């Protein structure tokens, strides 16, 4: 019982990070048809924002704000500098562009910040734990679950109940139609990037709080998992991305916890193989996006 709850909390916490990253990818993809391979660098940049403001001894709340703001700014800059000129290009051209942006940013991080991990020390409170009855539960996973759920809840509210949010959901289904109705494309696309940056920034906070350091590759690996999650959920489907993120996170934690020691190194391979088998059964993903094409 105890171990199950413990693992459940770990799974929710990891799945939440993947879900936020995957949702950011899905928002941008559904509106701009861009698979953003540089999404990891947005998260990494958020991490460096946290590192910088800690080095300057800012209070913790300011530090977190700076970290998240750094990610949002990075996302907006990317859109403005690299992707706006590519509007209307094929999905493959956009994907390759983002890949190039990602590689260039990594080299910049290595040269101008540091090729090695730089330490981040969150207040010791974060690494503590508390007791409920018999069980010991970490503060960090708890906070991360609460933050994730509030972020996802806030975003759902934004998308369902504000004018901008609703036009974004409409844009995800039929962007051309929305433009014909007079909604400004630049604004919708910029907001979608800002939202993806916001989610990546929050993910960066949780991630660095748990790992205690930032390096140029920090965002790369969780974002790779988030890519898989978006495809598993159904590319372009926002609900699918969140579900996919949680499924990948849960599979990963389960594999970590219950695999035989000799198989433990193969965790990623096993998790991804399961995802591929799921995709064989449902090639359009778990919650496919709506498709409005006509013959």
């Amino acid at each position, binding site marked *: 019982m105890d171990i199950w709850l413990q693992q459940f909390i770990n799974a929710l916490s990891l799945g939440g990070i993947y879900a936020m990253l995957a949702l950011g990818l899905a928002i941008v*993809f559904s509106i701009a048809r861009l*698979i953003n391979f540089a999404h990891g660098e947005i998260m990494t940049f958020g991490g460096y924002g946290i590192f910088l403001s800690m080095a300057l001894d800012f209070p913790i709340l300011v530090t977190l704000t700076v970290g998240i703001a750094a990610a949002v700014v990075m996302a907006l800059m990317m859109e403005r500098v*690299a992707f706006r*000129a*590519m509007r209307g*290009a*094929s*999905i*493959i*051209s956009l*994907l*390759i*562009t983002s*890949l*190039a*942006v990602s*590689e*260039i940013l*990594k*080299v910049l991080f*290595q*040269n101008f910040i540091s*090729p090695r991990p730089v330490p981040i020390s969150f207040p010791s409170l974060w690494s503590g734990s508390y007791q409920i009855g018999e069980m010991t539960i970490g503060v960090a996973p708890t906070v991360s679950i609460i933050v994730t759920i509030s972020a996802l809840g806030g975003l759902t509210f934004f998308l369902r109940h504000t004018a901008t949010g609703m036009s974004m959901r409409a844009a995800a289904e039929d962007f051309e139609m929305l433009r014909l109705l007079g909604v400004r494309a630049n604004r919708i696309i910029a907001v979608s990037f800002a939202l993806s940056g916001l989610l990546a920034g929050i993910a960066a906070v949780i991630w660095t709080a748990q790992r205690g350091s930032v390096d140029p590759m920090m965002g790369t690996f969780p974002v*790779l998992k988030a*890519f*898989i999650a*978006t*495809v598993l959920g159904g*590319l372009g489907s926002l609900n699918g991305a969140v579900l996919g993120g949680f499924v990948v996170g849960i599979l990963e934690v389960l594999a970590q916890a219950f695999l035989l020691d000799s198989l433990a*190194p*193969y*965790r*990623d*391979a096993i998790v*991804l*193989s399961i*995802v*591929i*088998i799921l*995709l*064989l059964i449902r*090639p359009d993903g778990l919650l496919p996006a709506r498709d409005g094409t*006509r*013959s």
Partner: protein
Amino acid sequence: MANRLRSATTVGVLLVSVLALTLLFGNTGERIALQMCVNVAAVVALAVYCGNTGNVSFGHGAFMTIGAYLSGILTMPTALQGSALPQLPKFLAGHELTVLVALPFVATAGLGVAILTGFAIARLKEASAAIATLGLLIIVHSIAVSAREITRGSQTFYGVPRITDTLFVLSAAVIFILIARAYRESRWGFFARAVRDDEDAATALGIVPFRARFIAWCLSGAMATVAGALQGHVLGAFSPASFYLSLVFAQIVMMIVGGMSSVGGAVVGVIAVTMLQNSVRNLEGGFSVAGFVLPEVFGLTTVALGLAILLIIWLRPQGIVGMFELGPEADSGVLRKFSRRSEPASNSAPVGDEQLVVSGLSKSFAGVTAVNDISLSVPTGQITGLIGPNGAGKSTLINLMTRQYNADAGRTHMGMADFTHLPRHAVIRRGVARSFQNLRLFHGLTAFENVLVAAFATGHTRRTAEAIALRELTAFDLADIAGMQAEKLPYGARKRLEITRALAQDPTMLLLDEPAAGMNPAETEDLASRLDAVGRNRNIGILLIDHDLRFVNRLADRIVVMNRGHKIAEGTPKEVRTNAHVIEAYIGWGRTAQTAISKPITV
């Protein structure tokens, strides 16, 4: 002939640059040439999948990893193997093959992995395919890092016999180019490219997109595995990281810079990027320009690659070479040359009498009933018109008949054959061909190739297929522009080309969705007489949807009228013209409408 010249041009470009490198730069040049040839093999392999299917793969690094390690293990001297890999499973140990003998095993293993993964990946396209292949790369990489007994984990894998003979690797690269060229111009290459350009249209021709992509993936994967083996033997010592994201990125850059839709593009891209990499690498350790000393920059080559690809995508998205192969351009007079040396196909025999029968078809979309209980029959030897105002459900009806959509109720029959559970690509095998409301040509293929694909899809040999394409293009007056890329044809010609493509499959029934839309009166008139001739000479049954009432009235023997999903009238053109329901639905009430519809139509 032209195809052979194109292959020769690509091989020639490679030979000249290898020769230039070795002659101009001596030993350094030869080393660069060696690596360049390996890259050509790898990128050509990658482009077999990417270029023909239009999807990008990150997964080829996985095949290269498998190839490098497998070939390394099979060729490693036994004594060395004992110390480097003491825990190697028995069946892999102590073979000590020569590279040449090991390669067939490597290729077979690669093919096996490709078949296994292809079942998932060939179902996907575009972004989903790209990410799924990325998943494959991560899987194989993490296995290579974890399987220490076989790969030494993330430590360096050493003791692999080295290849230093440029000629050997160059021959491999040339063979790869020839294989890729042969595949591209083969039936399966055409199918893959048709699916790439328009999946729905390809399916309507009877091509199964999954199969076309699967074959491209398997061939490409097996080739990449061999390329990985070559890379391993050139390096001599490597680790899983040697085949991970940065290598994959570099190869994708090479492919895109050259142009991924042609084999020549892949080769030119490798050569251009190799030059770039080597010039920049010299600058990486810091340099001075006119007295300014620039510091050491780590990863300058990566930045150069990134900028190269950004520039190409912004300025020339199809790459340096573009859509078309190096070598002789597509020739607009291609068919005249053809007709001189080949027998034209005999005119197709008139089809037997049959009926395409629709009974009670219905379909709703989210509560809106688009087609409501429609029954009609289309006999051979006649033109049946289907008219109705916008939104009447005409196109939906065609999409239901050809299995593009699943009907909520009702059936389509052709003779005894029931279409209800027929897969979409099998509809043409029952003799039913169609055109689309919005033009759906294979824009990357020439007009000739568009029709050739259709004839291939019917199962004809190349000879017959070419002759049929020739016959159909001539009949629709497209022979003179047959060598032009479909995308570049004038609008009217594109509309005719779509019908030509359908006719090349010798259908019994032809469903035409607004074939005259957007045409000027002269073009419409021309199309009308051609369709009339086709119907009479070949006994084909035609279901003709159009807004142009004169056009339909002139051609149709019988007309069915739809409005808001219902059939509201059926009869001869004259009966329909005077039907009160039709006038109400189609033109609305009013004196002008009455006179317009009852006036005799003269064309």
